[in-house]
Structures are given as C-alpha cells and as structure tokens.
C-alpha cells in the first residue's frame, strides 16, 4: 500500500538547553548546526518525490526557531526543487519564545512559513521556573505579539499542566492568559515523566511528588470543558482548535495513518505499511549523508495486526474515533464481532459511543485511553 506523499516533517535537533522533562532528540550545542543543514539538504534531495502532493510541512525539534531565516529559506527551496507542493501548503515552524529576535517572524513569513507553533508551555513564571524553560512569561508574551504583528494568523500554543501541586485555579489562570492571545490552536499536555529524563530520575529518587491520579484526571476534564466553553474543539486527547479549519493539518496525518516523510536525526517516515526512522544522532546523521547514504536506523513493516492496533491506538485519541469501515476493510472481520465485549464494557461505563460508524471515546473514556487501547489490542491478538 503506497499512497502519495502529502506531508513532510523536518527535525531540527538543537536546543539552547535541555528541558528536564523532554525526551525529544536534541543536543544543547549549536556547533553542528551548519553541518546538519547541509546534511538535511542532501537528505531532502535523496528522498525526492516529484509525484508527491505536499500540503503540509512541519519543522519540529528540538528548537527549529534556532534556524536562521536564510537557512529556512534554503531548506524550503530545496524542498520545492524535489517535491511537488500544493498551493495552499501549510508550513508550520515550532518556536521557542526564548530564541527569537526582532524581525525574525517577518523574515520567515516571507520565505513561506505560514503557521507557528509556539512552545509557550506556561504563562506563569513559577511554572516556567520548575520546567527550567529559557524564557519568562513576559518574553513569551512579546514573542506572541510580534508574531501577530508579522501577520501570522495561525498561531498554536503548547501548554503543559499537571505539575506537582497544580490546582484548577492556577491552571485556569494560566489558560486565561493564553486565551487573551486568541490562539487558533492549543496543545495542552499533561506533564509526563518519561524514562531517561532528569525529571523522571527526580521522581524515582522521591524528590518530586507527582500530582495524584484523581487531581490529574479532574484537571484533564476541566481543560476540556473550559476550552470547549471558550469555543475550542477538543479534537485529540491533547489538542484543541478554534474551529474545524484550525485543526493541525500535519498532525492529523499521523493519527489517520497517512504516509509522511521525516527528515533529520530521529525523524520517522511512514509509507502506509512500512515505518523507518533515522539515527537519533546528529553526527552519525551527518556522516552517513556525507557519504551519500540515507541515515536510516531501523525499518519495520507492519503486520496486519500491527496496522489494526495502530488504527485503534491512534483513532481512540481523536474526536473522530476509530473509523469502523476503514478498520473492517483491513481486518476483514466485523468490528462488533471482534470487540463486542469491549464495546459493552465501555458503553456500561459511558466511556465510548458509536456515531456514524465511528467508535469514539467520551471525555470520561479519554481518561482511560491506555486501558481501552489495551483491551482492544488483546482482542486483536487473540482473534
């Protein structure tokens, strides 16, 4: 199953400083940036696809806003040389508010970036301090204003909640400050302690006492109801859009298992049945590309079972739910026949509903996402 490429992801593996909760691949030095950009340009050329119909490009990281505007320009022009871009292509750049100087937004906008995802994380200095971010609430505010001034009408914010000791009141204050900027998109992430991160180590060592389950759950529910009351669509577990047209075009492709190409260290690519990923190592990435080799670390071809599991795992995250017809096309077995017990359990707990041939988690059900996913997965394995 090889469909047309429509999405490109570009991983920029540099940060000013590693945040203690973050498990994305990046290095806290810029010394390899030039080499990286050269290698990236090579990778783009090597993976060229004139048959593509690219309608979204996403610069993620790390901190893509550490790229100079002319670097972004050369990357995008290399992309245009080797891929076919749709006229309304959405080009998103993730921005760390602590990295941008005056004029930055005007320039990148000129080169074609038309959507920004701002790594605000919080507009409360105390929380920013705990997360050891490199910017204050004030700096973030300035960056947001200058982005607007530069004409960006698609702004997304990343916010993190559920820090130790966080209450509904403090979180609501944070949210209210963000809402003052009328972002078109909001990603609200519950703080998670990912193995291997310093924050996880702190937790293990007992130096951090995490928010208890109940409070975390009620913050999650509050976020959803509060933002929906403010006109946002809760369209994925952690994502909210100011209207259907403001949902992240790019990220939705991941959840819908649509093919994408990823460039840069650690970036994943998917062609509908095979997924591969690059070495999470800038040096190795550079070395291999300098020798004209694609820096692929691993490739896996999904079995039918694995495709089904991913459809469930990702579908359950979204407000569109699992597309039952699409699922049955692959499973060649009735959805209800396979999952009647799970569906019954979920219905009994008001965790899910079936609307228009879609199995959709309710807000309550979203609290048990992993549980429901593994119930589905078991049925898939045991069939």
């Amino acid at each position, binding site marked *: 199953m090889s469909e047309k490429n429509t999405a490109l*992801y570009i*991983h920029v593996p540099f940060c000013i400083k590693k945040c203690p909760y973050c498990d*994305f691949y990046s290095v806290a030095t810029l010394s390899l940036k030039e080499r990286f950009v050269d290698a990236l340009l090579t990778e783009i050329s090597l993976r060229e696809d004139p048959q593509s119909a690219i309608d979204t490009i996403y610069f*993620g990281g790390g901190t893509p806003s550490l790229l100079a505007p002319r670097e972004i320009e050369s990357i995008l022009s290399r992309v245009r040389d080797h891929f076919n871009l749709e006229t309304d292509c959405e080009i998103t750049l993730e921005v760390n508010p602590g990295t941008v100087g005056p004029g930055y937004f005007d320039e990148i906008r000129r080169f074609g970036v038309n959507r920004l995802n701002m790594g605000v994380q919080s507009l409360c200095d105390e929380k920013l301090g705990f997360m050891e971010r490199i910017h204050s609430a004030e700096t973030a505010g300035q960056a947001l204003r200058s982005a607007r001034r530069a004409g960006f009408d698609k702004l997304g914010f990343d916010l993190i909640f*559920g820090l130790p000791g966080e209450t509904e009141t403090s979180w609501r204050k944070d949210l209210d400050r963000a809402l003052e900027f009328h972002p078109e998109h909001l*990603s609200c*992430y*519950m703080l*998670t302690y990912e193995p291997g991160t310093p924050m996880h180590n702190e937790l293990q060592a007992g130096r951090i006492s995490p928010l208890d*389950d*109940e409070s*975390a*759950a009620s913050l*999650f529910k509050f976020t959803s109801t509060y933002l929906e009351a403010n006109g946002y669509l809760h369209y994925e*577990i*952690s994502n909210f859009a100011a209207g259907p047209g403001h949902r992240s075009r790019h*990220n939705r492709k*991941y*959840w819908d298992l649509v093919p*994408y190409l*990823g460039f840069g260290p*650690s*970036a*994943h690519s*998917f062609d509908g049945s095979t*997924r591969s*990923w690059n070495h999470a190592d800038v040096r190795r990435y550079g070395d291999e590309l300098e020798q004209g080799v694609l820096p692929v670390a691993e490739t*896996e071809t999904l079995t039918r079972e*694995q495709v089904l*599991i*991913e459809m469930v*795992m*990702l579908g359950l*995250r979204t407000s569109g739910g699992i597309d039952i017809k699409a699922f049955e096309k692959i499973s060649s077995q009735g959805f209800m026949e396979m999952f009647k017990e799970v569906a019954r*359990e979920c219905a009994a*707990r008001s965790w899910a509903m079936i609307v228009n041939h879609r199995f959709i988690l309710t807000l309550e059900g*979203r*609290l*048990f*996402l*992993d*549980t429901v*996913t*593994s119930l589905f*997965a*078991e049925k898939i*394995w045991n069939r």
Partner: protein
Amino acid sequence: MNIKRKNIRNFSIIAHIDHGKSTLSDRLIQLSGIVADRDFKDQILDSMDIERERGITIKSQTVSLPYTAEDGEEYLLNLIDTPGHVDFSYEVSRALASCEGAFLLVDASQGVEAQTLANIYLAMEHDLEIVPVVNKIDLPSAEIDWVKDQIDEDLGLDSETALLVSAKTGEGVASVFEAAVAMVPPPEGDSDAPLKALVFDSHYDPYRGIIVHFRVFEGSVAPGDKITFLSSDAVYKVEEVGLFQIKREPVKRLMAGQVGYMVAGIKMISDIKCGDTVTLAGNPCEGPLAGFRDPNPVVFSSMYPVASDEYPELTEALEKLKLNDASLVYEKDSSAALGFGYRCGFLGLLHLEVVQERLEREYDLSLILTSPSVRYEITRTDGTVEIIDNPSLYPDPGEIETTREPFITASIIVPDRYMGAVMQVCLEHRGVSTNYQYLTSNRIEMKFTLPLAEVVYEFYDRLKSVTQGYGSFDYEIAGYQETDLAKLDFLVNGERVDALSQLVHRDKAVDRARNACKKLREEIPRQMFKIAIQGAIGGKIISRETVSAYRKDVTAKCYGGDISRKRKLLEKQKKGKKRMKMVGSVEIPQSAFLSVLKSSK
C-alpha cells in the same frame, strides 16, 4: 571394547550437598581422557540448565571411563555422580542399586553432615563397599584429622583407608581410580544366562523415542535382540545399546555387570517403568529383580496450565518428565477456578520448584501451582482415619475428631553468632529446640522439632536471610503429632478461589490470611472494577484487601515519532498477559498463586 567382567567397576560418588562430587567426577573424566580439553567445562555432568544455574546436581549421571591401572590391565569404571540435596535422595538410592561400591566424600572443612549420614545408610542397605574420601584438602580451613575422627566415630568406617584428595587442584585424584580397582568388587553375574537387567532411569528423545538407562545383572543384550519389560509385557527390538561417555557411545553388546543405555524405538511411555526388569522375549529370566521402593512424597501441590486448553500438553509433559524423574507422582485433579490439572507429590520444596521449572522450560508450558500442602492425618468423629493433602478434600470441621500433622527433626548448622537469630526463626515457625552442640569452636549444630508445614512456608528464605547464607539446613521426617488445623479460603470478588485455599494452624490463620491478602493485592493488576480480596475461615471473613479499579491514564503526546514506541509498549504487555488466568471475572497472574506463601518480612 571387549572388557572382562572382572575388569568392570560400578560405583557412585555420594556426599552431602556441595562436598564436591561433581567436581571430583570432572577430574576423573579428565584423567580418563574421554573428553577433549576444548570441550570440557566445569561440572560437566550437570548438564541441565537448572543444575548449572543453581550450581547443584539434580539428576544422577552415569559415565563410563576406560582406565589402565597400575597392574597394567584395562578397566571400565562406571561412575555415577549423584545429587547431595535431600530432595533428590531418590536419585541416589536408584543409582546405588546399580553399583557394587560407593565413594563417600566428606568436605574437609565441613565434616560429616546430615546427608553424609543419610547416604551412608543408603549405601549400607545396598551392601556396597564404601570408600571414604576426604575432599577439599587444599582449603586453608581443612581439618583433616577432625574429619578422620568423624569417619571413624560417626560413620563407623576405617579412616586408615580414607583417600585424601582435592577435586579442585587434582591432588590425590588418581588414587580414586586405583581404589576403585582395588576396593570395589567386580560385578557378579553370568553373561551366558538369560538377560536380566534393571531399568534405573530413562529419558525421552524426540528422534529416537525413549532411551532406557539400565544395568545388566545377568546375560547380555545386543542390537537385534527382542526384549520385553516384565511389568508391561511390551516387546521391542533393540536398535542400539551403548555406554554413557558424556555423549552416548554405541557398543556391540552390553554384558552382565555393565551399565548403559538402550534404544528400541519405544514411543509408548506407559511401557517403561523405572525399576522394571528387562529380559529377552524369547528367553526370559526367572522372575523380576527387586526394583525400587516407591518414592515417598512429602509436599503436595496441584498444577494447572495457565491456558486451560493446554491440559493435554501438560499430561504429555508430565508423562515424559516422569520418565526422567521417577520420584514425581501425580494424579488427576480439578478445580472450579482453574479447570483440569494434576495433584502432584514432591520430595520437598526444591523438588517442586525443579519440576515446575523443567515443565516450563523443557515443555514450554506456563503453569499455576497451588499452595503446597503436607499430608495431614484426620480422624473423623465416626472413628475413620484418612490422610489428606489437598485442602479441597478437607472435611467439614464438625466431622473432625482430631487432626495430626507431620513433624520433622531439623538440623541447622551455623556459625554460633547466628544462634539467637536462628532460634527466633524456629520459634516463629512453631519449632521446639531439642538440643545443640558445638562442632568446632564456633560452628554449632542446632536441632529442632518443627512442623513440616512450617518449612513449606518460607522457612528456608527466612533462615537464609537471618544467617546471611551461612546456615545449612537438613531434616528428616519425625512422625505425626496432634495439631489444630483450620482451612483458610480466599475469595476474590466474593467468589471462593479453591486453588488458593490452604490448611493452616489455627494460631497462624489470621496472620497468614492478612499476609496472603496483602500479597494478592500486590500481585493482581488493576482491572475495570474494584476487586475485593478476602480471607475466610468457614463463613467468617478474617482479612480483607481491595485492588482499586483501573488507574486513570496520564495523557501524553503521540506524534509521528511516538507511534512505533507506543505500539511496542502494548506488545510488551501482551507477553505478560499470557501468564494470567481468568478466575470468574478477574484476571489473576500466575505468580499470585505461590505469592501467598511468601511472607512480607
């Protein structure tokens, strides 16, 4: 090799655990040159994974060593390395039945210990020539004179004849060969008489069928012969006979006095019984050999496959394992919670563990074992007496007049600084101290009478931990004493799980119930609903714990780079799932069933 009967020697190496039997066997094997240096590894006869991991011998192993003695003659020395742990003494007794002699090893630093004595009695029962060997003389802590005194006084052997060796350095090892030639009598028996041979072990080979391990007492056997087994009457044509020389080494014929193996395309497991007599179908011998006495299991537990549809596989695995572990006894059993399974008897807790591990490893099964129980003697009000080892058969308390439980005499040898701690552990387990004696200036032997059931309940672990591994523990069964028993049941969400029931001393019931409920709470993963775990005697609930329902998930991001990783996490859970058992509406992991026996100390 054509060897005369007078040049054959059959002997076992016996000793207390860890006194160096397998290491001495190593040296003898190396001296004989049957294994190339590059193929050699330490404790080469301990070929099972469990033996190598635990560093102990579980199975007796035979190896036939060619030896040219100082008298210039060629000899064939059949050596059997035996296990030292008390749970495997059935292996020792069967090995001895094929021998004329035994080398009794004594560790020069430890001296005579409980299994030294137990094994010398076994050897005497078989009328064997016993040669004492003081091993580990290289150790700085070796006390050769003290050990020699013990050989004279405690063992009643002549220490003048004792060999002094170090199996580790090889010092004195050659003298073992010479002593075998000089002191162990050659086998008797007439090679021209009708075949009369004893099956002392066997194992299943997927390509060749059952391989029979046997000793020829009279006559001889060669490929092409039609043989029969006296107790099953089955007739087979011999395909191959041979010697054990680490590998199986085919020979033309096995004669009276020899120990070896036989392949005869045997697929019917029920045709082969340990202790059976083999003879020629056309020219049978008169009557069977004495065979072996039945094993005497002391610990009982039921075994169920985690996947109920694996019951036929379990059946087949037990049959095959029984070929290679004659001490295993089992019969059909069933449980409302776990379906069909087997009630098995073991010679001890280590034996139980080994059987479980072998079934899981060698036959790729996933098993649930119920709480081990001892055999209780119950006298009903109507005067009838019965022996019960299965909680599910425990009568209504109203019908019980008296109950008696088995006791053991335990001997614990420790450095004297641990005396207080050991005393404490024994008292906690209803032990009564009977006496103690100093073995050396700081090693002490303490004797206790303890209920066997207490030893089943985590006694070893506690002893090991309070003595930091320096305690040696041995026991013998010491008869029945009256006791006050209660049947402890466990309910999971109101449903009694029969496989968790235990028979316990009434004074301990509340503690046990609390502890078991706590363990179950830790073991049972959260599920859709709250799970109540209760311990009860009769209808009375005496302990309670709750497993709360599924935890709410902390939501995390999931983009292009996260998908594979998240899916793999799910796939990892799947592996864990296989070892879960649905009981009513609750999933109970395999590990929960034995966890109730582990105290939380």
